[in-house]
């Protein structure tokens, strides 16, 4: 029977899996619990969906628990999420008290599991207060912050901070995202799952079918940005870059695809502006995709010659990782985690303006062999650095390190 580890060995290498097995040896039989707030949807759930069973195959007693809450609770945690990222949002005492009540109710349900676990990973702010209600905990507790917490709105951060301080360690995606805390702040960039619907290889038939569904011309060059209709993703800048480049590449096509914006008034406004900027150009396709359109997104990234992520503010930028994994050069905004992935003239280009993006689009369509060269480099770069197996390796390293000491060098015997 093929195991999950075998499947990952086929994509990465047998060495990578052997390394994981050896590193996991001192953790064999340890209990690890991950807690987040949703079983489906969102990057955290996507990663845990594979990280947990992979850890189990390595002999670690790993499990994934999901807290439950009502709409008031999620209203509060959405505000917290935005406040951690710097938005000046005030949350009423009543909502904060409700947040604590929901955490306490969940702690009552999960207490025996959490207090007995050797390691507990609490993902994002929703379950952060569980620690307060697990006073007999025996293991190490780690807070995994998936967002940029470097400049939080202090009024809200003060509330969250008093729980986070009690943890043994925290994890951030980039050093730039770290908040000052009295425990080690580990840096673990996120990763993509090469076997998920969003990243798995697709057949030519499936690609052709997606191309036909959206009326994309197979004989004309195509650029794409697959991202939420959010001002920070600068979709208007992408349209401007396309319009500038089109003067030199008349057949150029642009696909702008993103999630639905029905529950997001700001998103709807941005979408209207994008539609206005695109005018009646038939070569611009603006696609609103449902949240589970993973294979369609996968196909659109593969159909593009060049992928753009012209963000003016960005977290890690996993859409960049996904595009590089599909062998596409990326023209990305010079910000956040895009800087870690897009290396000028190697995996793509960093740009600051629509003019800069247009220049690089023209360059790549003139030097078409570069599209292929950069694509190959980008794919290998992701294979080495940004696949799920690397993230698992760093989780294992962190657990071994926490288990032993805080010294910089830990020599395991035998």
């Amino acid at each position, binding site marked *: 029977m093929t195991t999950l580890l075998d499947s990952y060995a086929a994509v990465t290498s047998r060495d990578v899996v052997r390394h994981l097995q050896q590193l996991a040896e001192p953790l064999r039989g340890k209990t690890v619990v991950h807690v987040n707030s949703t079983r489906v949807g969102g990057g955290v759930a996507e990663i845990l969906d594979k990280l947990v069973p992979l850890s189990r195959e390595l002999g670690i007693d790993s499990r994934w628990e999901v807290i439950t809450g009502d709409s008031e609770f999620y209203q509060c945690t959405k505000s917290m999420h935005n406040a951690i990222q710097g938005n000046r949002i005030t949350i009423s005492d009543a909502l904060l008290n409700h947040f604590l009540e929901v955490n306490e109710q969940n702690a009552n349900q999960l207490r025996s599991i959490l207090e007995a676990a050797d390691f507990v990973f609490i993902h994002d702010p929703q379950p952060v207060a569980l620690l307060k209600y697990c006073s007999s905990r025996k293991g190490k507790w780690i807070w995994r912050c998936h967002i940029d917490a470097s400049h939080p709105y202090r009024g809200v951060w003060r509330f969250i901070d008093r729980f986070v301080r009690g943890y043994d360690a925290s994890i951030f995606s980039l*050093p730039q995202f770290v908040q000052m805390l009295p425990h080690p702040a580990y840096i673990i960039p996120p990763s993509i799952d090469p076997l998920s619907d969003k990243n798995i290889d697709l057949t030519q038939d499936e690609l052709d079918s997606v191309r036909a569904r959206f009326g994309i011309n197979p004989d004309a060059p195509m650029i794409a940005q697959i991202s939420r209709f959010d001002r920070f993703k600068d979709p208007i800048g992408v349209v401007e870059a396309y319009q500038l480049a089109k003067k030199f590449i008349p057949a150029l096509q642009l696909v702008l695809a993103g999630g639905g914006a029905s529950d997001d008034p700001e998103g709807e406004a941005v979408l209207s502006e994008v539609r206005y900027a695109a005018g009646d150009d038939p070569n611009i396709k603006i696609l609103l995709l449902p949240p589970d359109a993973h294979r369609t997104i996968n196909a659109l990234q593969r159909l593009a010659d060049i992928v753009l992520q012209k963000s003016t503010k960005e977290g890690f930028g996993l859409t960049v990782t996904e595009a590089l994994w599909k062998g596409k050069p990326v023209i990305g905004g010079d910000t956040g985690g895009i800087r870690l992935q897009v290396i000028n003239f190697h995996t793509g280009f960093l740009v600051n303006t629509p003019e800069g993006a247009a220049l690089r689009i023209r360059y790549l369509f003139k030097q078409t062999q570069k599209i292929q060269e950069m694509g190959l480099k980008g794919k290998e770069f992701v294979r080495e650095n*940004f696949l799920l197996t690397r993230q698992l*390796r760093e989780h294992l390293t962190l657990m071994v390190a926490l288990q032993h000491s805080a010294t910089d060098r*830990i020599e395991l015997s035998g």
Partner: protein
Amino acid sequence: MNEMNNQAKAKSPRFVLKDCALIAIATHKRADTLKELRDHIENLSADSLYYHFWANLLLPHFEEREYINDFAGWVRHSLADTKLAEQLAVLDPTTVNDLEELRYRLLECIDDRLDESEYLRWSHATQRFEFIRSQIVVFDTQTAVSHPREMAELIPRMSASSIFYHFIDSRRRTQDKIDDFRHWLAFFGDAYQPLINQLTGIDPYFSTLVELRQQVATDFQKFFAEDVR
């Protein structure tokens, strides 16, 4: 001195194959100017210095490094000072006695440049320098070889991180600041001197760990192929 070296000094100098994994930790130290960089370096922990010269090879990074340490890269790309970048880039941890001497050399270069250039005293970097430290976990692979010929077969199967441990990290651990392979081969007398000379010629700075593994493996395999002839 590592276990391999201790064992190598015994009657049967077996090479114990180890592997390692590394994880980065934020230090909360950041620099926006050269002066801030300098002041942080003065008080930086040894493991953080080590990280910015060597350990980052094991963490996500792009294969083709223009500069071989993070300080030189930052000075070039974020402060646009090519002269200082070049001076910092030649600093080699293997040519100094310890990390304290390395720190001294770094500070010397930066202080000289700050004295030379008024502009650099206040020039603001385009990207902030984030000081990182790391923890390294070293573990036994349950593999050992007794003869260099066996090593030639083993190297292609070593993980990239094992190559890091034996070829790069060793330079911090061993007294003579060389890789574990040469250190081990020296226990066999002059028999392997040509191979030691070949390995000495490998510049570890500009290769990926996978390329390094290939170079070391090729040197071992060529040596034994010629030995057979």
